[in-house]
């Protein structure tokens, strides 16, 4: 800076010296030099200013659009809270909430009895597995023979049905079928648990299969009988377990019956309540109209009409009384249920069947008293429940932001809980960032510091090209390729140490995370590479001059100096990942439930739904202005806020750790 100024001074001096030596031209008087010359104006404005305004307005369009987006989102979404409040109010007034107090904990009964059923199955299998396998294998073999000889069998069947019958043709076809069946029966691979005599008998019987005989071959009948005997034997041996399981399952039935009656009643009441709400709104309107009406006659008629509609409210109270009136009965049933299941838990045999079954039974035995306690606690709260207690707005906010259920188009009650979507989005984003960060940062370090010019010319455009791949194409790859790959890998025996393997669903959070990582790599790579590029050359000089090796310079000087840019790149990558829609919609599996974190790290192989995915999937199908529509806009607002926050953090980080600009 100084040198430039100095240079200007000197050149100015030289210029004046030169001017002195030249003959002096006639100079204009000083005053007119200083006066502003007249310029052309457009609409009274200086063209320079006009150009300035033009550029300025273009820059401000972006800001205006952003503000408009915020305003629009808020306008559509903010009504959600009062709407949802009204809905929750109805949910309470109609007694649905009352039923759910018992119904929600009761749902655990199903989970527990399904574990018990599995345990019973596993226990029975210890005795009857071989018999069952033999039976199933024999049926399978028979099917295979039938499949292989399907064509002659079909021809024969048609010939037999024909009227009048053609005995000659039938004979020929019969022979053909016999040949085909014999060949098929010979070619079969018989499992080792069949003895040689049994195999021989089977071959014989299968060769003789004909379409008109529907009875099972004798050996198969023997095998079926064999299994029945074994199964009965097993059931007597594990009688305690079997009865406990049956008792446990049946225990819920009387309670469920009462509850179902109440639920039906509640739904009926809900309809009334909705109707009442409409009437109430109508009444308000009538009263308002009456208040402004000047004609006394009209006014009287409006008021009368308004008063008439109030009577419905009384009906609502009567309906709810019918439900709450049965509180004692319901509580009694709950108590009975609790006693029965506790008894069932007590008689559950301690060491039943195989190891897996024993573990399951012991688990259920532990959980049943807990479940009973839960039911009793729920039943106690029934007494305090009031149908006309208003739902506060804080509860509504809590129900949205901390609600664990997102249920829509339900015949019972819609819930808009945000947590399942948020967890899905966050887990997927975390997976993506964990994968993309090392890949892109290491690639950036390599490209910036170690790669030759030719390598740079290859790597940079290729990575940047990833950005150009349409996300729907990536989603397609996720469905058709990555999902199958992960599933195949998960079945390899030497990979079984990986938590969550073998996986159940091809479309899951890990799959989506991988693809999003791929999408985030170009952003993170380019920005990290820029950050490394911006590290002053002087640092590298200093490090080299001290005798540092290339690696030492890179890891002790360049990367620490560029860390702010790298962190900011990671955050911007996160912003991109959180906002990405198409891939997660296609690949994440779209199950609206909080992933089961008790599965440990294997949770990443579960399907989930996301904030972006739910909007894309549902917004097109809901009616405009409904509570569902508004809920989706609320999700949009939160998504917008998250993106703003992430971007703001990226900027803050970039500023916070920017040492060489200090």
């Amino acid at each position: 800076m100084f040198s430039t100024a100095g240079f200007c001074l000197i050149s100015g001096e030289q210029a004046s010296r030169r001017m002195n030596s030249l003959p002096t031209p006639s100079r204009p008087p000083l005053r007119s030099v200083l006066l502003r010359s007249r310029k052309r104006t457009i609409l009274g404005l200086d063209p320079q200013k006009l150009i300035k305004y033009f550029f300025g307005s273009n820059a401000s369009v972006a800001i205006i659009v952003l503000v408009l987006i915020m305003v629009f989102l808020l306008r559509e979404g903010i009504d959600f809270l009062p709407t949802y409040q009204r809905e929750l109010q109805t949910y309470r007034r109609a007694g649905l909430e009352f039923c759910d107090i018992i119904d929600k904990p009761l749902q655990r009964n199903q989970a527990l009895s399904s574990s018990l059923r599995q345990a019973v199955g596993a226990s029975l299998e210890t005795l009857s597995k071989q018999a069952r396998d033999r039976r199933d294998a024999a049926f399978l073999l028979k099917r295979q023979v039938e499949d292989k000889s399907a064509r002659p069998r079909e021809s024969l069947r048609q010939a037999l049905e024909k009227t009048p019958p053609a005995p000659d043709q039938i004979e020929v076809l019969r022979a053909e079928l016999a040949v085909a069946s014999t060949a098929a029966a010979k070619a079969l691979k018989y499992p080792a648990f069949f003895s040689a005599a049994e195999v021989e008998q089977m071959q014989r019987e299968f060769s003789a299969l004909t379409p008109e005989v529907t009875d099972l071959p004798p050996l198969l009948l023997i095998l079926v009988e064999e299994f029945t005997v074994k199964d009965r034997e097993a059931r007597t041996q594990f009688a305690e377990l079997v009865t406990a399981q049956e008792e446990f399952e049946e225990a819920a039935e009387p309670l469920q019956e009462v509850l179902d009656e109440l639920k039906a009643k509640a739904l009926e009441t809900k309809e009334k309540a909705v109707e009442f709400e409409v009437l109430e709104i109508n009444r308000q309107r009538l009263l308002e109209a009456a208040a402004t009406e000047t004609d006394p006659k009209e006014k009287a008629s409006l008021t009368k009409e308004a008063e008439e509609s109030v009577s419905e409210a009384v009906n609502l109270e009567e309906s709810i009384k019918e439900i709450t009136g049965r509180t004692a009965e319901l509580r009694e049933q709950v108590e009975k249920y609790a006693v029965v299941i506790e008894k069932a838990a007590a008689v559950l045999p301690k060491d039943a069947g195989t190891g897996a079954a024993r573990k399951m039974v012991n688990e259920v035995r532990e959980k049943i008293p807990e479940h009973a306690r839960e039911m009793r606690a729920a039943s106690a709260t029934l007494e305090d429940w009031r149908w006309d207690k208003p739902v506060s707005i804080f509860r509504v906010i809590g129900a949205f932001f901390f609600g664990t259920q997102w249920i829509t188009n339900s015949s019972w009650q819609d819930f808009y809980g945000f947590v399942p979507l948020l967890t899905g989005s966050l887990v997927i984003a975390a997976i993506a960032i964990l994968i993309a960060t090392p890949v892109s940062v290491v690639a950036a370090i390599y490209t910036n510091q170690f790669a030759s010019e030719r390598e740079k010319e290859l790597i940079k455009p290729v990575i940047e090209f990833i950005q150009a791949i349409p996300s729907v194409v990536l989603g397609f790859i996720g469905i058709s390729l990555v999902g199958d790959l992960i599933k195949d890998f998960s079945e390899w025996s030497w990979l079984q140490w990986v938590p969550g393997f073998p996986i159940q669903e091809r479309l899951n959070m890990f799959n989506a995370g991988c693809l999003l990582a791929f999408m985030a790599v170009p952003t993170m790579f380019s920005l990290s590479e820029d950050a490394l590029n911006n590290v002053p050359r002087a640092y590298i000089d200093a490090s080299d001059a001290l005798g540092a090796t290339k690696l030492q310079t890179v890891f002790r000087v360049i990367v620490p100096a560029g860390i702010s840019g790298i962190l900011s790149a990671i955050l911007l990558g996160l912003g991109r990942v959180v906002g990405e829609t198409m891939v997660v919609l296609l690949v994440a599996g779209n199950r609206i439930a909080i992933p089961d974190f008790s599965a440990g790290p294997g949770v990443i192989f579960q399907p989930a739904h996301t904030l972006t995915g739910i909007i894309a999937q549902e917004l097109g199908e809901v009616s405009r202005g409904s509570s569902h529509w508004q809920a989706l806009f609320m999700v949009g607002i939160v998504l917008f806020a998250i993106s703003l926050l992430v971007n703001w953090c990226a900027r803050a980080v970039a500023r916070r750790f920017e040492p060489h600009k200090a």
Partner: protein
Amino acid sequence: MSADPTAQSTPPPVVQVRDMDFCYGASQALFDISLKVKYHRVTALIGPSGCGKSTLLRCINRMNDRVPSARVTKGEVLVKGKNIHDADVDLTQLRKQVGMVFQKSNPFPKSIYENVAYGLRIHGEKNKSVLDEAVERSLTHAALWEELKDRLHANALALSGGQQQRLCIARAIATVPDVLLMDEPCSALDPISTLKIEELMHQLAHEFTVVIVTHNMQQAVRVSDYTAFLHLGKLIEFAPTEELFTNPREKLTEAYLRGTFS
């Protein structure tokens, strides 16, 4: 490391340049340079811009290696009697023994302590007490210890320009090099900081052999014991500073000193 009287009587050349030609690709930058840098003396390299004085300086610690096409085409450079272009020379060891200070101060964006300790750390020193001792010694040499001892863990970039340059000197001498190269170390500093660094150079000459490039002839007079004058890549004259400035042997030197060209 204090000056040994016997060494003073027969000072061996720490750095010796013999008949060296140096090229950047096809263009030759230095022609047939021969120079002996005396032990524990300050040697100044002066000359007009583009005369090759910085290039010559950078030949001594092979900083020119980083320019892909640059190479010594004839002759050799010896540091402590060893040809630094020999195949068995370890570049990191060479640079450990030949420290360098740059024109623009370039401390790392780390703490003051880490800046000074960097050279030792990259050469594998992990012992905390050794590092502490080296940091204190180097900062004391660079006349910074008293100013900075209470904030060793503050970021080095928060220091003033002059302090930063002295920190760079401290960083360069922390590894106890034999030779300290300085490439116009004061050109970006204000007069007071310049003065401090010039004072420092006198001190440093007791323990190190210093080679300094400067475009400021007064500075060369003030700080150096020997001066080499380069012009268009050729070493025109090399003599004790007093002699060169008061009684130059070459016409070109005289013309340059009088300011006929710059």
